[in-house]
Structures are given as C-alpha cells and as structure tokens.
C-alpha cells in the first residue's frame, strides 16, 4: 500500500495537537487555501527580533498537511525567519527535484521524502510553508 508516504513519523506528527491552536495577538498570521483539495492552513507566529518565540497552526486538511504544520511549528521556536524559509525551500527541492531535504532540527521534513513520487500531494506538505510566507510577507516590517 501507499503506506510508504504515511510512515509512522508522519502519522505521529499529524496526530500531535500540541501546536494546533491559535495565538492571541500574533506578530504575523496568515491563512491559505489549496484550491485543488479545499484544504486550509492558518499559521500564527509570535516573533521577537526576527526570531520565533511561538508558532501555532490551524489545519483543516489531510494528514500530510497536518504533519507538515506540526513539524514546522514544533521546531520553529528560537529559529530565525531565514531558517524557516530555507527549510521550506529545502522541502520543496526534496519533493520536486529529489533534494536531500532539511537536516538538523527540521529533519522531520525528511520523512516526507516518499511524497516526491506523488505530485498531487506535494502541495499538501508545502501548504504550511505557503501560509508561513504569506504571514511573513503581510507582517509589514
């Protein structure tokens, strides 16, 4: 079965609700939709000096999307914005061009490697990063 893309790490991440809540008065926040499947992700960020103090998500979407949102928010604390963006880029490269995927703190994203073979699901993994970028872009700093 396509269990290869739903490996244990992903199922654990997708079911981890620790960061599944809204932040009151976030420094940055955005919601994005995936028109292809109707999924919707909100990312809230509390930032200090361009570093993340707190990140949370609200996902109405599939397991891949929820797992990706958790992997992002659970590891974002203390990271600077550039690192988050780079993680998104590395994840994109991993899915689209067979790149190695993020290492170190964000190596959870490497678990999405097998999704590379399922083009229609790439956007599920990347949607939280789209929300992140939209939030940072709209921040107005």
């Amino acid at each position, binding site marked *: *079965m*396509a269990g290869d893309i*739903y490996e244990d790490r992903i199922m654990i991440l997708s079911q981890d609700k620790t960061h599944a809540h809204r932040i009151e008065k976030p420094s940055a926040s955005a919601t994005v939709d995936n028109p292809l*499947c109707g999924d919707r992700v909100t990312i809230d960020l509390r930032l200090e000096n361009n570093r993340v103090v707190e990140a949370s998500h609200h996902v109405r979407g599939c397991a891949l999307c929820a797992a990706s949102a958790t992997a992002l928010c659970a590891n974002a604390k203390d990271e600077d914005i550039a690192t988050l963006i780079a993680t998104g880029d590395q994840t994109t490269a991993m899915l689209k061009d067979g790149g190695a995927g993020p290492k170190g703190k964000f190596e959870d994203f490497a678990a999405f490697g097998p999704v590379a073979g399922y083009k229609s*699901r790439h956007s*599920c993994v990347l949607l939280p990063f789209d929300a992140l970028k939209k939030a940072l872009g709209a921040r107005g700093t």
Partner: protein
Amino acid sequence: MSFDPAAIRAEFPILQREVRGHPLHYLDNAATTQMPHAVLNAVHDHETKHRANVLRGVHTLAEESTEAYEQARGHVARFLSARSEEVIFTSGTTSAINLVAHSLGNTFAEGDEVIVSDLEHHSNIVPWQMLRDRKGIVLKFLPVTNEGRIDLDALDALLTARTRLVSLVHVSNVTGAELDVRAVAEKIHAVGAKLMLDGAQRMAHGPFDLPTMGADFYAFSGHKMYAPNGIGVLWARQEILEDLPPFQGGGEMILAVTREKTTFAAIPHRFEAGTPPIAQAVGLGAAVRWIESLDQSRAESHLKALTGRTLDGLATLDKGRGLIQMLGPSGTQARMPVVSFSVNGAHPHDICQMLDGFGVALRGGHHCAQILMDCFDLTGTTRASLAVYNTTEDVDALLTGLDQAISRLT
C-alpha cells in the same frame, strides 16, 4: 444479450493493468469510465481508414467520415429514442449546459428566474451564475434532503410565473440519487418553464426514452459512458431547438456569410460551429451500441448488488462507532452506483492515497459540488463509483483497504 462480468472485464484493456503491485480496482467511474475494445477499435479504425473533415467534402474519405459522423448521431438518437436532428454534439456536459445558458439564456430578461438545486455539479451552477451576472436573472436553489436527494417538496414555493428554466441533475455524482423526473416535469411546464437535466451520471446505465420523460433539454458526456473524452451531447426537443439562436459562430453552422449578415444552418448543425470531434463522435456511437449490447436488467441487478455490498460493507466496517457518515440514499432504490462517505478524523485524500496502495482507485474531495458539501458541513467525501465491469473483488478490495486505512488514520 448476455451479462458476464468476467467477459466484460476482458474487453477493457486498462483493467489488465497493475497499480502498485495490485490488480487495478477502478472505482472512479463517476469521474471517467474506461473504454472497451469495441470503442477503442471504432476510433482507431476511423482514424486510420476514414479520417477526413466532414460535411463539405466530396472525396471518398470525406464521404465516409461524414457518413460515420452522422451515423453516430443516429446511434445516439436511437439510444435516447429521439430524432437525429435533436442530437447536438458538443465537447461534453459542461459545454452543453453552457450552450443552453447562452442560446436560451440570452433570451431571458432581467428578473426572469432559473431554478437549480444544492445537489448540482458546478457545471450546472456556474453557467447560471454567469448568466445572472450578464442578464440580471434570479437564480434559486432547491434544497437537499438528508438522504442527499433534491427536496422536491420545495419546488412549488420556488416556481413562479417568471420561472423560465429549471435545471437539475438527473443522477447526482456525489450521492447517486436519481431524480423523479415525472414528479417535477408537469409542475414546471405548468408555469411555462422548461426543464433541463444534467444526465452526465445517467448515461452509462442503459438506453431510455428521453422524449416521454418530460425533460426539454438533456446534457451528457461521452467519457462517462465508455466513450472518448472531448465529446458530449445536448439533446433538446426539435421545436425548441428550431427557435434557438446559435451559441458559437464558425464554419459548418452557416447558410451564407456576407460582411453584413450571416444566416444560419438548420438544426443540428447550427449549434456545431467548427470542425466537430469526429472520431470522438464515432467512439460515442460505438459506446452506445456497446451499452445496448448488454442485458440491461442483469447489468442493473449486478450494479445494485455491488452497491448494496458496498453500503453493507461500510456499515459493518463502522462497527457501530459512528465513524463513517454516508452521504446519499440509505438503500439502492432510485439511485445509481455512486457511494460517498466521510470518515471522522480521516481526510478523503489520505483515504484515497492509502487505497491507491491497494490498487483501489477512488475519488476524494468536493466532487465539484461545494454547495452540497457546505450543506452537510463537509469539505469533501470519499467516493466509490461503479461500472458494469466492476466485481465483488473490487468492492472487497475497497472494504479491506478501507479497514486498514481507517485504523491507521483515526
């Protein structure tokens, strides 16, 4: 006339395919059905022996191609118990509905009313919304019942002297519910309105007598009835078509063109601007003959049995947990073999993806019926839809895979 699922399967080359190490269990027939040899060969034969442009040529290939194209129209007409002139080839259901929304719709005045329902496919909503924006018509929606049927009790309250058209889905692509056409046709005609049916999901299930059914317009697609993509049909009563202006302009639909003025050809060609989808029409003609060659009542029982097995199987899987919510009629009466459900806590795309790992092809999402999804407060469902080549093995593969997917996802 025979009906042997194993023999039928053998006619469909794609069903020999493996998917991720499993035999293909193709249960996405409401999206697109597969094509039997009879259709594939008819198309191939046409393209390699008779291909030419139609209608105006006098050379042998052009004669043969024209004959094949018009014969296909005849086959479709017979399938519908209709006249050939009433069969307009389009590129699909969507373009058939858009044709009516322009040709007929442009004769509507501001304040005229069109009624659709919450059960409609986007193809039968968006063209009317666009007409509303162009012309200032009023668009009304019939609600749906808990069983995923159009709520016909609400019709009386919506029909007025301004109603010009009621356009409803004959068979829902989400719930499988079949409309009781006779129950509405008379009421609609009584206020002087016309009835259009979106028959995309009906046509794979055998010939029927369209003119006596009570509809005035009927739209469907070849690719959902064992025929190629890129071909569809708009049927309408001859006397209605004869009064309708054309929609698209171009070759083949004119009588005479001058700089100042163009006069248009008779039906059906008036509505077929440009080179039509010729080989695709030939394929559709072969597809209706193929459908006709099946024993209709045995095909129907076969699909009812599989639908019942699917419904029962899902109930058993649920084990009374209330995890699986059905979206559609609870029984197999007045429904076609389309079964939609949602699983608490499991996203349809994850279910479809996992089932793909078992070779089972399902569809998940809003199925181009977002208004319906909103009615049931869902973003999507998982849908299994059956065709005559499906077997109990296909249904059982679905149920087995789903059991595993649910335990993993929830």
